[in-house]
């Protein structure tokens, strides 16, 4: 699905930005890559990722709501794919809520949801 591919590519770019390309190459990240097992992501690095996601997708993805149900160990035990799935799902739902008559492609859904909500994370 196009949305999933787009979101995976964006999250991968963010991870490379946070960890540095001397440690992580984009090709190494797949849907089944685990934040803890494969990337050894530190909790402070996940916080940095959350900030970038919030800037990119805005409050529409309700990242806080998604994270509120988890502790840091549970978050880091996730695969990249689980985060991608959450964001893809919510960007779709958010578009469906704001423009029910628009028949958008998944790619347009991601873009529209992202531009509709201004980044609020500092």
């Amino acid at each position, binding site marked *: 699905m196009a949305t999933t591919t787009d979101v995976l590519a964006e999250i991968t770019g963010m991870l490379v930005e946070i960890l540095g390309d001397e440690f992580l190459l984009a090709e190494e990240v797949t849907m089944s890559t685990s934040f803890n097992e494969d990337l*050894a992501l530190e909790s402070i690095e996940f916080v940095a990722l959350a900030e970038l996601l919030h800037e990119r997708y805005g409050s529409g993805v309700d990242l806080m709501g998604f994270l509120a149900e988890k502790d840091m160990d549970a978050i880091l035990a996730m695969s990249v794919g689980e985060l991608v799935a959450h964001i893809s799902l919510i960007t779709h739902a958010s578009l469906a809520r704001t423009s029910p008559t628009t028949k958008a492609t998944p790619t347009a859904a991601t873009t529209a949801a992202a531009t509709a909500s201004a980044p609020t994370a500092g």
Partner: protein
Amino acid sequence: MAFVPAGSLRFHVQRLPATAGAAAPDRPVVVFLHGLVVDNLSSFYCPLAVPVARAGHEAVLYDLRGHGRTERPATGYDSRTAVRDLVSLLGALGLGHRRVHLVGNSYGGTLALHAALARPDLVAGLTLLEPPLGGAWVENMVDTLSAAALSLEDSPVPAELLTLRLRKAANLTSIADELLNRTSLIDDIAASRTLTPADFARLDCPALIICGEHSELVPGGRELARHAPRATIEILPGLGHDVLKESSGVLRETVLAHLETTAAGATRGARVPRTGALVR
């Protein structure tokens, strides 16, 4: 805005806006101060900062001087400089004109108390998780940190081990090594003045002290609660020092309830002059 210049340093800061709908403009922003050396802002993120933001309070987290992703200068690890750092940072964030609620964990709690005593005009309330206060805490802390400093000096992490998987351990080790062996942190803690009951009695904002039942810091917390006129202490059963890690559920509810109470008090307090003006 992850990095914010304030004073002479660049601080790593995370701001979580109050969830839309629940936000109330007159609620104090909640600012989090983490513990020493191996700690950083991320330990607050899940257990408290996200729930606090979702309950309608803006949350501000920052890495203290030398910790996490904030710059690590060689000096300035005393409580006076820490308070100055906080005040500069609040100014840089545009929060210098309003009182904030400070949540401090461990040594961050001690720093929050110092801040409230030094700048009562800036602090609306305190939540202190396991703050080391009184007694022999300075001596104990200096002993512990000195032992850690020695062990780190003997085991540097070779650069060739810095692969993706080992980066996490290497980062923690190298930050601790730099802080303990290449800054004045241990000397600054050793020289710090222990707060006394007379200091506690000057604290005039609402304060909640939260300690783990089995922690050796309970007596210091009780002493603060006894002498500070608006302080109370909550002992969490079955827990030790690391209440933040061990008890997210009970801790979260306790802290949120305290924030609601103090926010309601602050709002009532703010309304008094307005009513008075109407009557006049």
